[in-house]
């Protein structure tokens, strides 16, 4: 009869963001045990609250599935003489413990051997669990573990009880001084008594004790309650998914409250108010017609009354007061006057202060701005000048929750002072995209300053030897440069990376030797390659395009995308590539030379030459207009001519002059393809 296995590890409050992974890693541990021990089950459920991690396996088999072991004995010709078993066969049968007539034979390497099929003794599942649970629980994964008792067991937080049931039977083991049993605990405040649970009523018993153990259930209820609370004031909650997930795992039973705060705080910048609510207090802001209203919603872990609401209101008020304090104090000094203060903040010991960095930022932004279309250079340079000034404000400098609003805060202060909106957008946007999920800056001008900011960081760091190695990238150079590429492509900035890097190096007082320049080039090329793959370009096409040049990431991206598009007609694509590979192979070791038209004897040679000459000017036009797909289609027209040449003309002719001339012709044809990519790099599946 199949039974349900239920194991609940009861703990002191585990951090919200540890829970999901911990529960799956617990379930995985058991699954792999069951797998290796031939124990079957139907479904697995993982449940958790801050105070427990539970796994439930349904229909766990009563016994291990039969394991038949094959044991190899003596060779048949030694085991049987004239059809009768010898002492060697008898000895083997006795040793493995089966009757003589159950022996079988099997061939190994061409020779017949006696074998015995022996059924392994099946162990009780309870015993297997008891022997293994300790190490499975020990291996549950957490970002950080701690010690708390004398055996120095490591877990996210102290284990205080364990329920382990296989059907009606208890699975007895102990861990970190805690013995398993059948008693769980209810809600810490509302039902603190221990409760006896069974596999059949676990979820319901806990619900009666104010514990909703299924996180999905808890989250769904909480979401509904928050939405309907907001409706009471005619608003909508600002429901960020990650915050809802976190809050779901800070409580065992969903209750919500709504509180209010003084309207005067609505004069603070919106993100400041939201940060004050979300970051530390995990409150949900409320909006009406897309504007904040002076209310907040919070999940609480107890039946709420007015005093709970008042308590939370006071806490939020103190946080908003604090933000208001920063806001008022900071506004006394305009952003513009703060720029010189940046000389007091060291950015990097060998690369100078933030003022030095700002100086470089202005110059680099100007250089880039002059090379892209349709931007306002004045906006760029003033934006670059003010970009870092908010790092001197209390709001950012104080190290409290508002610190991650850098850029945004600068823009808010600048706007207050009457700085133009376009410049404010540069101040705010020059940090974006902050990560792979973040969007691009709003304006081209902000994009330009963001490029300058990133190249200055990357080049500066390489100059002082602080480059990423392996998985280590403490300065976030990879992320910074990924953002660079996204901006360059997103805004179609046509910039030579080589020139930009050279320009950036000039800004530092450190000499860039060849080795450093090569390191930066390698880093940049790797990033571009990674970017191309992240937008769905096959690795071989990325290689093919980049081996012809990564200097202009915009061009490389468009060519790669066109190649991907062109590749959709697989047959055509393959033939084109194979043709190019043939050309490349035959050109290996050739020393070079000019085409002599008078030596083109065969019609196939003449036709290929003529065709190539015909398409060359058009190809040039298409490349100039970045019409790479059309360019590929044009190159495709060369293919039958190339095939014809290979099929009917002996390229490697005995006559030196003829051979050289034919190779020169092929070299010329290949050079047309290389205007786009190195087709040799492409892999035919």
């Amino acid at each position: 009869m199949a039974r349900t296995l239920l194991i609940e590890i009861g703990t002191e409050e585990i951090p919200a963001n540890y829970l999901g992974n911990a529960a799956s890693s617990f379930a995985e541990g058991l699954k792999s045990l069951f797998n290796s021990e031939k124990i079957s089950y139907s479904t697995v459920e993982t449940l958790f609250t801050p105070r427990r991690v539970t796994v439930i396996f349904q229909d766990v088999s009563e016994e291990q599935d039969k394991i038949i072991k094959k044991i190899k004995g003596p060779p048949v010709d030694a085991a049987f003489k004239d059809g009768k078993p010898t002492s060697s066969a008898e000895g083997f049968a006795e040793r493995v413990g089966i009757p003589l007539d159950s022996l079988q034979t099997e061939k190994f390497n061409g020779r017949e051997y006696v074998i015995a099929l022996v059924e392994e003794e099946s162990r009780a599942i309870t015993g297997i669990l008891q022997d293994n649970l300790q190490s499975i629980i020990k291996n549950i994964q957490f970002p950080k573990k701690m010690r708390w008792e004398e055996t120095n067991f490591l877990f996210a937080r102290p284990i205080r009880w364990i329920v382990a049931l296989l059907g009606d039977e208890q699975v007895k083991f102990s861990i970190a001084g805690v013995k398993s049993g059948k008693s769980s605990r209810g809600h810490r405040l509302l039902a603190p008594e221990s409760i006896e649970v069974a596999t059949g009523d676990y979820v319901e018993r806990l619900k009666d004790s104010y514990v909703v153990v299924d996180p999905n259930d808890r989250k769904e209820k909480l979401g509904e309650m928050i939405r309907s609370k907001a409706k009471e004031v005619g608003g909508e909650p600002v429901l960020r998914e990650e915050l809802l997930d976190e809050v779901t795992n800070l409580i065992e039973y969903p209750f919500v409250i709504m509180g209010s705060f003084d309207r005067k705080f609505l004069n603070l910048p919106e993100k400041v108010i939201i940060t004050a609510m979300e970051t530390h207090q995990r409150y949900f802001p409320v909006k009406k017609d897309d504007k904040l209203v002076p209310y907040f919603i919070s999940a609480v872990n107890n039946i709420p009354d007015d005093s709970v609401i008042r308590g939370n209101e006071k806490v939020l008020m103190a946080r908003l007061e604090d933000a208001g304090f920063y806001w008022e104090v900071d506004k006394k000094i305009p952003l513009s006057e703060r720029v010189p203060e940046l000389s007091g903040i060291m950015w990097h010991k060998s690369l100078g202060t933030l003022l030095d960095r700002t100086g470089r930022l202005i110059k680099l932004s100007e250089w880039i701005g002059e090379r892209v279309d349709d931007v306002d250079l004045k906006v760029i340079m003033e934006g670059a000048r003010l970009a870092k000034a908010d790092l001197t404000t209390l709001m950012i400098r104080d190290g409290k929750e508002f610190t991650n609003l850098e850029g945004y805060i600068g823009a808010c202060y600048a706007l207050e002072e009457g700085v133009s909106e376009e410049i404010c957008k540069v101040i705010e946007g020059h940090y974006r995209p902050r990560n792979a999920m973040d969007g691009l800056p709003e304006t081209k001008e902000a994009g330009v300053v963001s490029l300058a900011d990133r190249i200055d960081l990357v080049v500066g760091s390489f100059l002082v030897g602080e480059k990423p190695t392996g998985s280590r990238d403490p300065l976030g150079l990879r992320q910074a440069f990924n953002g660079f590429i996204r901006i360059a492509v997103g805004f179609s900035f046509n910039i030579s990376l080589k020139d930009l890097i050279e320009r950036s190096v000039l800004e530092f007082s450190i000499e860039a030797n060849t080795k450093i320049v090569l390191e930066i080039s390698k880093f940049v090329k790797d990033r571009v390659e990674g970017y191309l793959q992240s937008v769905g370009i096959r690795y071989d096409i990325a290689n093919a395009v980049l081996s012809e040049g990564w200097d202009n990431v915009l061009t490389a991206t468009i060519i790669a995308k066109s190649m991907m598009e062109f590749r959709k007609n697989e047959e055509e694509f393959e033939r084109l590539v194979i043709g190019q590979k043939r050309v490349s192979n035959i050109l290996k070791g050739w020393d070079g030379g000019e085409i002599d038209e008078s030596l083109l004897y065969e019609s196939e040679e003449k036709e290929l030459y003529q065709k190539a000459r015909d398409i060359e000017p058009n190809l040039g036009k298409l490349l100039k207009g970045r019409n790479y797909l059309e360019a590929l289609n044009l190159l495709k027209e060369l293919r039958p001519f190339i095939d014809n040449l290979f099929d009917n003309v002996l390229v490697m002719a005995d006559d030196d002059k003829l051979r050289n001339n034919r190779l020169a012709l092929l070299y010329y044809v290949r050079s047309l393809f290389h205007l786009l990519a190195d087709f040799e790099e492409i892999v035919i599946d």
Partner: protein
Amino acid sequence: MLYYRKEKGGSIDFQTVYLKLEKFWADKGCLIGFPYTSEVGAGTFNPLTFFGALGRESLEVAYLETSRRPKDGRYAENPNRTQQFHQYQVILKPPPDYVQDLYLESLKALSIDIKAHDVRFVEDDWESPTLGAWGLGWEVWLDGQEVTQFTYFQQIGGIDLDPVSVELTYGLERIAIFLSGSDSVFDLPWSADKSWGKLNKEQEYQFCVYNFDEADVKSLFEYFEKCLSEADRLMEKDLLYPGYDFVIKASHTFNLLDARGALSVKQRNNFILRVKKLAGKAARKWQELYS
């Protein structure tokens, strides 16, 4: 103007909260200690905790600490934030299994009806960079307000603790504000006829002016260097306690320089590391001399 606002039927004031908490832990068998005499940023600096948590000998100790964090001052304008405040510190080594329940019992002893409030243990991994100390645990929320830091110490002065200690740090002002219903720490009754503000507001304001605007940066830099070298020199002579006292003074001087905005990011990290190194030395010295 400062004034005293009488609470309706109010016998709950700051000193009562402190006395109740002290009585609770004394009744549980704790040794009752005293605040340290140099400026400290937290009860953890007190040798009762810093050295007490080292070594294998069991320890139950509780004491009041007057803590100073210059940067947290708000010129006495924020209802909830001051540069000087009071902590009640409890160290339990090794921690009993029921330590969370024991903590909740202490809240009940303060007449907090925990069944009627949202009491929550919210992840907060505590770290004191200058002491080289860290632990895992929570901040305890009472209706959204952080009222206690609850930490299982794992390391002090860079040394693994065995057994570990639980450190409970109650924010006395916050708990008293909660119980008295005051809107601001300055309105909080200290005793039956004096408010917290009456006793401390002027001092709070003046220290903010000193911390943020008037502290002489040059002398502070010099003093910081002197404290570090003195700490090192004394510890080399096995004068652990005076040496450690200078580590504490260095840490406070660093906090003043930080509040004054006199440290660049680089300098700041460097100063923290230098204090941490000497705190580590003090911890190792203690082990060498006494364990």
